[in-house]
């Protein structure tokens, strides 16, 4: 049963390994929790799930596998008269008895017996070990104790909290099924670095100190060195609005990944194609506007430029003046794009549109002409290739 559950998890993109499975077995062996289905659920969750994004998936799979323990039911049980299940006496069980119950056999056997009992039993029953009733050790009924049993007509589980916690699916919001996580992006971006020593000498340089001390005849002479830092400067230009909406999540990840990775990271927004101005804020307020000329002046040639955009637009926006969908542009977009390329030594274009769909959009081909060999899909491998290209001229 457990192995079956484990395999189902694996087949459903929940990456559990043998190690987690063994942990779970060990936890059960050591009796880390009181035996109850909810405790078992919480324990599995703690041991098997490693990301909050996977919690929802886990809940669903758990429900699928173990849910049937309780699913059988509502209609069949509805016919049981209420008074059979009225809480009356509680039976205290010894550990030995509990163990016996555990050995009661599988789910099927239980179901079969339940159906038979339903046919045979005609009256209220209490405290026994066979019939449907209360307080006993029969697997069927309420307020009793049988680890393999059904609970019928009880508002809450007496031995722990409410039923079927996993059915609440409270982690739904956290499941964003991301294809890539930021960590991978960051690892790819890591390659984009130029380690240089600049600034205050704060690191103790043991070797140099020894050398100097030896040279001065044993008189201590301390030496410090400047710590290495990544001096790469990155300018991120992000396309927003319109056709980019569906790619926002992916872009946000990239952005989150770049944010902590570089000493200097500046980002600006544009709409569809680069024109005579860019925006500092996503909301594209008039106040946060900056002319593209100023951008070129303020950021030197040594900045590495990453343009992120789907390059999907009307070809007019690139080729003609006045082609922009938003304003009257005195110069066509491609002038600005080529100026960008002239000014900055290293530019790449990352495109969230899958590579195999590029041919279907004319404007992508046009921009590819402007960025020969410099357009990459916004995937992990695309990013890696892009970073390599950015490193070529430094």
């Amino acid at each position, binding site marked *: 049963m457990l192995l079956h559950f484990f395999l189902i998890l694996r087949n459903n993109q929940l990456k559990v390994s043998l190690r987690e499975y063994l*942990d779970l077995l060990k*936890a059960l062996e*050591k009796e880390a929790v009181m035996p109850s289905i909810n405790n078992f659920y919480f324990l599995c*969750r703690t041991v098997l799930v490693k990301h909050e994004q996977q919690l929802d998936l886990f809940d669903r799979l758990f429900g699928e596998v173990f849910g049937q323990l309780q699913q059988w039911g509502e209609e069949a049980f509805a016919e049981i008269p209420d008074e059979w299940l009225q809480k009356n006496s509680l039976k205290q069980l010894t550990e030995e008895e509990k163990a016996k119950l555990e050995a009661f056999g599988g789910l099927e056997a239980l179901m079969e017996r339940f159906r038979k009992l339903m046919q045979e039993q005609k009256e209220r029953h209490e405290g026994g070990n066979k019939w449907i009733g209360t307080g006993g050790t029969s697997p069927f009924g309420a307020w009793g104790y049988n680890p393999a049993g059904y609970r019928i007509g009880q508002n809450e589980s007496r031995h722990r909290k409410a039923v079927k916690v996993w059915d609440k699916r409270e982690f739904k919001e956290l499941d964003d099924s991301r294809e890539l996580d930021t960590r991978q992006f960051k690892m790819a971006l*890591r390659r984009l670095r130029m380690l240089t020593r600049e600034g205050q000498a704060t690191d103790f340089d043991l070797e140099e100190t020894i050398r100097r001390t030896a040279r001065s005849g044993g008189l201590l002479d*301390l030496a410090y060195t400047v710590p290495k830092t990544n001096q790469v400067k990155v300018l991120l230009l992000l396309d927003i609005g319109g056709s980019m909406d569906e790619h926002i999540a992916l872009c946000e990840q990239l952005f989150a990944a770049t944010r902590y990775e570089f000493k200097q990271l500046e980002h600006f927004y544009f709409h569809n194609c680069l024109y005579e101005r860019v925006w500092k804020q996503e909301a594209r307020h008039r106040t946060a506007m900056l002319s593209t000329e100023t951008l070129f002046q303020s950021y030197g040639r040594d900045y590495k430029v990453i343009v992120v955009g789907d390059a999907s637009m009307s070809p007019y926006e690139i080729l003609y003046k006045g082609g922009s969908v938003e304003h009257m542009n005195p110069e066509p977009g491609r002038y600005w794009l080529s100026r960008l390329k002239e000014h900055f030594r290293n530019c790449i274009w990352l495109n969230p549109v899958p590579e195999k769909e590029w041919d279907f959009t004319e404007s992508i081909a046009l921009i590819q002409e402007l960025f020969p060999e410099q357009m990459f899909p916004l995937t992990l491998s695309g990013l890696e290739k892009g970073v390599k290209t950015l490193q070529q001229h430094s």
Partner: protein
Amino acid sequence: MKFEGTDHYIATPDLQIAVNASIILEKPLLIKGEPGTGKTLLAFEIAKALQKPLLTWHIKSTTTAQQGLYEYDAVSRLRDSQLGSDKVHEIVNYIKKGRLWEAFEAEEAPVLLIDEIDKADIEFPNDLLQELDKMEFYCYELQKTVVARQRPIIIITSNNEKELPDAFLRRCFFHYISFPDIDTLKQIVDVHYQGLEERLLERALELFTEVRESRGLKKRPSTSELLDWIRLLLAAKTTAEQLEQVDLQQELPPYAGALIKNEQDLQLLEKQIHYSRRFS
């Protein structure tokens, strides 16, 4: 040895199970969750409940894994050699023990809190794999292996600023503290402010939930904000009647600053109020 929360900390059953499972199986427990749901506090409360010493290791962006093990103070040794101090012959005098070493050596297994592990460099968790797994490490200067006497109870918190590597995650148990439901919230407020007027609490929670559910908030107020806010309400002797008159369609709740910590969020709420005033 079972953790069931303390007088000041309400632990939900799933959290209790996660903590107890990691204590029994001697695995580090990784805690994530919204800010302000008591991640860091958990370690303090476990230590209190189980009456064990607590060691805290707060991670910063410059923290390295080595600092958690030990540091070798070469400068003071060189200086001592100059001054002719006797200490200089024993290298052990210049080894500064880190938090992990202290935890490994302790008489009684302590609770070790590694706070905000995501703040450190992206490779940081990878550097601790062996140490957390085997609970031992090698000290080159002393040429000896430091082995844990007992495995400490390790609680690790993360705010998700950086993703943690899979190899690291596999060595931990994981628990996500979700935002408490209304009953648990009541219990939490209850243990902090006993004998709070029922009506006041009801209304305060209503207002709080309404603010929390507003669309588009960047930082939704959480348990710690709620507690601060109630403290403010109590300090100002706000009555239940006063609170009941507050209409969130028309005005911000009193002391909104305790609930909303972000300027953008405050503007968002004000804007919503502005619109609803115009249309009513």
